[in-house]
């Protein structure tokens, strides 16, 4: 391995994660960024949230950014992680590890089955099918036929069953390290798989699926791999999420949740690992801070017209998203590596009607 690769592949990420690991020891205040000192439970909880979403965004990036699969149902797998482990522990009184194993196994099975079915179609149809399956899951969680999820009330986790290291405000910094470790885990797993030979096929599929087929490979098999990997990692993220928030609520079952992940990945940069993670972290942070800013005295003083949109973080994030899509399609990562990420090309071909032949008439576009 060349020296440059060694630095890029290992030194940098480890340095970053190592630095992040030291955060709970920083007893400093950064008033502009955080309300409370960095090492306080409040701030650590926020940071943990950022890290978890960074990881979840990265799991979505595997199928969307790398393989070119636009799914509107990723939330389903996060929800499986968030709910199943909790249900197993709190409703069925299993042990924590039994719950975790069960959840991961369930996620693996569901991802394979639903993925196999969904991938029979592609493009818009695929997006719709994934949305449909996620909706089915959401309805199931809401209607709660067996009184497991507790519907709209949500299901608090039985904290006596959880690993004590993660229970209680005192242990917020342990939760922080958990989320950091999870993010690092996902990061390295994604990198390893994406750069392996199946991973290269995923990226090729994103570029030009027909070519892949012509080369004699069944693209559907590879797409399923990426989908299953993405979904099971998301479920694992769901478990971490559940630990962080101490329970399960319906918010993770909504289509909005998947769209949020989509926003994160696009803002950060689809097809870029650091980009997706950054997108997740930034979005979560801004979502939280914007609420605080919205109710701050400066904004209170603004005229009603300006104040109202600023009090709605989703509005600002939506607008930011639009601006990025229009002016900076590579996301923030694209600022570093210029130009439109070619990953989106493939998606374009999937979504454009008539496939690659009946293309739009503008001369700038190639058929």
């Amino acid at each position: 391995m060349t020296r440059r690769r060694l630095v890029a592949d290992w030194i940098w990420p480890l340095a970053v994660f190592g630095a992040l690991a030291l955060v709970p020891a920083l007893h400093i205040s950064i008033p502009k960024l955080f309300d409370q000192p960095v090492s306080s439970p409040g701030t650590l909880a926020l940071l943990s949230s950022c890290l978890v979403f960074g990881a979840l965004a990265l799991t979505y990036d595997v199928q969307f950014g790398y393989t070119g699969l636009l799914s509107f149902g990723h939330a389903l797998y996060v929800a499986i992680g968030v709910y199943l482990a909790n249900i197993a522990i709190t409703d069925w009184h299993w042990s924590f590890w039994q719950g975790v194993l069960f959840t991961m196994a369930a996620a693996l099975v569901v991802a394979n089955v639903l993925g196999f079915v969904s991938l029979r179609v592609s493009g818009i149809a695929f997006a719709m099918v994934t949305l449909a399956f996620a909706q089915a899951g959401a309805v199931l969680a809401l209607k709660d036929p067996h009184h497991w999820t507790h519907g709209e009330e949500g299901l608090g986790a039985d904290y006596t069953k959880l690993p004590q290291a993660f229970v209680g405000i005192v242990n917020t910094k342990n939760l922080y390290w958990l989320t950091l470790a999870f993010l690092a885990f996902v990061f390295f797993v994604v990198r390893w798989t994406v750069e392996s030979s199946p991973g290269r096929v995923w990226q090729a599929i994103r570029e030009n699926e027909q070519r892949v087929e012509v080369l004699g490979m069944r693209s559907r098999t590879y797409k399923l791999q990426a989908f299953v990997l993405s979904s099971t990692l998301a479920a694992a993220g769901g478990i971490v999420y559940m630990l962080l928030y101490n329970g399960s609520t319906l918010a993770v079952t909504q289509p909005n949740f998947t769209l949020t992940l989509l926003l994160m990945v696009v803002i950060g940069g689809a097809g870029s690992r650091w980009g997706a993670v950054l997108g997740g972290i930034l979005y979560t942070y801004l979502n939280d801070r914007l609420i605080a800013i919205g109710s701050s005295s400066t904004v209170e003083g603004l005229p009603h017209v300006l104040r109202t949109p600023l009090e709605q973080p989703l509005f600002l994030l939506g607008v930011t998203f639009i601006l990025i899509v229009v002016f900076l399609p590579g996301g923030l990562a694209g600022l570093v590596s210029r130009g439109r990420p070619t990953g989106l090309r493939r998606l374009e071909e999937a979504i454009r009607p008539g496939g690659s032949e009946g293309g739009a008439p503008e001369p700038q576009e190639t058929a």
Partner: protein
Amino acid sequence: MSAVASRTLMSLADVHVYLGGSHVLQGVTFDVPEGGVTALLGRNGVGKTTTLRAILGLVEVRGSVKLGDDELAGMPTHRIVKRRVGYVPEDRDVFTGLSVAENLRLAERDAEPRYDLVYELFPELEARADQRAGTLSGGQLQMVAIARALLNDNRVLLVDEPTKGLAPALVADVAHALERLAELTTVLLVEQNLGVVRRLAKDAVVLDQGRVVHAGDAKELLDRPELVKKLLSVGVA
């Protein structure tokens, strides 16, 4: 170029087209003289259809495509067509959900579309005016496709393999229609059927692997079987 000097109506210069990563046209250069039929020949996949699509702006073009004094490269398709460029595509691209009459009506561009000419050549289209185009036979679809181009007064007509897949009797009909068209306007004809080429074409341009490898009088080319075999890999009809 043709031995008899005539005005150049259209000229392509160093045209490059990339499709899905492939360098399909690698510097195509040729002239289309005004009046008569210029045949665009070549084996399958050399870029003949792409050349026509490039002229129409249906693909991204690098290089120059001049029609008279107008530079077409970079212009949006509908504006190119408004400059009186007609198109009969390889797959006909007739709108199957519309009726025959609707297909023709959509194609009207000039103030006085030439329905009398169309119905004279293709009386069947008048009879089937309200029939849904999706129920037409291959030959009838081809008639509609040609009729659309016939309706308007075009400076140049781009015709892509009009006899493809047609029975011999229909081939003769189509050739006859094209003859009438050639009296009215300049035609750039992509065609694999060398009999039709011989009947119609004055000049011929041969493509191979995205480049022009031969240009000259059509009959001269067709009278040399070894050359035809070399360039087109077929026996002469």
